[in-house]
């Protein structure tokens, strides 16, 4: 008993020391070239329910980019790390269905981390994750979610990039969730920036992936060294 207590204390000390010396990786992602114009999803306006929720046309979200060419919805992660998931104790990733769109369009979670799907719309959707890595244990499911219905919970045990969630009732609704086996990842915001927090010092390969911007879906890789002060790295992806 005494030994266990000492080991636990030592473990806690090591983790604390790690966080004490860990740094944040920050950066910004821009896109070169001219992204194609987004398409209007005409089915939204013509749908008897969804059409009532929008006064403006709804468009695809392939390239969410501002006038400075800063690119949102880029998944940034450390490469080659496995078995470090803290997903079981991490707060859940929330996906909402709002105005017949999944929000967020691009997200990320750890293996074993709870993914909670909400329905804020006043009518039903069906929530249909379609994983590719079924050999790793990620399971496809298709569940109805009524208006005001209980949240749906999902977890995926294996890493997978851009795991697709869809709604077949409204077949233009998609969300892509990246599942990783460690806690060091981020998705860029509207200004193209990202922060990966509490990365232990060391040398890493960092990769930035976008569904469409080249090189997709493999992304751009860079070698970085993280110190107690952190690290800064920017990426340029290409619209073709």
């Amino acid at each position, binding site marked *: 008993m005494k030994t266990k207590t000492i080991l636990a204390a030592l473990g806690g000390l090591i983790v604390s020391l790690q966080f004490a010396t860990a740094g944040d990786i920050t950066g910004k992602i821009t896109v070169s070239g001219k992204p*194609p114009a987004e398409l209007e999803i005409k089915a939204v306006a013509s*749908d008897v329910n969804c059409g009532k929720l929008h006064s403006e046309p709804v468009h695809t979200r*392939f390239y969410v980019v501002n006038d400075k060419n800063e690119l949102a919805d880029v998944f940034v992660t450390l490469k080659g790390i496995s078995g470090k998931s803290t997903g079981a104790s991490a707060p859940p990733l929330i996906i909402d269905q709002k105005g017949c769109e999944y929000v967020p369009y691009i997200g990320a979670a750890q293996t074993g981390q709870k993914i909670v799907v909400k329905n804020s719309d006043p*009518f039903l959707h069906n929530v249909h994750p379609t994983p590719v890595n079924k050999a790793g244990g990620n399971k*496809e499911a*298709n*569940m109805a979610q009524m208006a005001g219905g209980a949240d749906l919970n999902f977890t995926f045990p294996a890493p997978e990039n851009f795991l697709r969630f869809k709604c077949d009732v409204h077949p233009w609704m998609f969300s892509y969730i990246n599942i990783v086996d460690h806690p060091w990842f981020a998705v860029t915001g509207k200004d193209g920036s990202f922060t990966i927090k509490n990365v232990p010092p060391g040398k890493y390969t960092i990769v930035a992936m976008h569904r469409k911007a080249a090189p997709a879906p493999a992304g751009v890789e860079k070698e970085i060294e993280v110190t107690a002060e952190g690290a800064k790295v920017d990426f340029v992806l290409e619209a*073709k």
Partner: protein
Amino acid sequence: MAQTKDTSHHPWLHRFAVLTALFTLALLGVGGLVTSHGVGMAVPDWPNTYGYNMFLFPISKWVGGIFYEHTHRLVASFVGLLTAMLAVWLWVVETKGRTRKIGALVILGVLLLMGGLMGVREHKVFLGLAGVAAAGMCFSIYQFQRDGYELRWLGVLALATVILQGVLGGMRVVLYKDELGIFHATLAQLFFALICGVALLTSSWWRRNVPLSPSQTKSRSKAAAFVSRNLRSLLLATTAVILLQLVLGATMRHQHAGLAIPDFPLAYGKLWPAMDAESVMRYNQQRQEITAAHPITAFQIGLQMTHRLVAVVILIGVGWCAQRLRRELGGKHPLTRLGWFWLATILVQAALGAFTLWTNKAADVATAHVLVGALSLVTGALACIIAFRQSAPLRAAPASAAFDLTRPESGARPVAAQK
């Protein structure tokens, strides 16, 4: 062998078979809309619909993709009912006494069993049912050719097929298997051809124009003319290629890869597109898919190119068939006219294929492509039935043959050929 009730024509039975064929075509259309809209999984459960008995699902909830999928299920149930009625009718017409009663009761029992299974959720029960239906299909084909080609076995075959088809559709939903969707789509086409075949074989046209037995050949019309072995082989081969083409099309549709190549007549601006990994990566970057949002693969690009090439083969094959029919049978022969109609459906089908791409796979255009594809298969199948039957050696019809689909007797020759 069962005993016959009578050998007279049954015009209402024929009309009922035509009605069943029309509803089957409508079912193919609704099924096509389900896949074209990408909403095959809009109702997550089966055989229930969102927990309701499917016949009691409130109309107010028929929204979005649910409308197409649920309508598909209801029309499919109705076609199943029509098929069971057709099977009973054929059985009653061709049998009498105990055989008639037992057969009719068995078919009605199967129908009641299907209704009773609506509340069952065990997949194993339905997989078992699929196995029984497949065995029933094999048995009825065996009995059909053994019992002198009596139509009641085609009725049983149709019933077994529609049951298997329903289970395949349901299993595709609950097992998340796109592959089952490909089988489901192909079997739908074959089922439609089968029902159209029954409609042909029960028609007064068939009785008037197809040589039935030596005693009837004097009164048959000029339509009964000999079709050469080569032409029959050509008709059969072309129809088989159309079936292959429909399988390719079903594979593309159920992988949602109909737009794996978005341009036509070129493919990514070339006669043959580059299919290396880097090129496929570039294609995916440039795709702006609104519904079928899945990366395409080199296999899917190859599949569409194969679909295009097979279309050319079919166009040549059907054109050749039409020309050969005209040369052998004359321009006014019904088979020749059917051949020209067949060629017209292929030309319309080719145009619809092109428009499917040019309209970015608009659901109504893509579904029309499916329907005309079904019509082209059926036209080929009916042409084969007529050509092979008209050219087959004859023997006297057995007493049991209500529809006089006599089994060919080896060594005999058709009267037309003897002339």
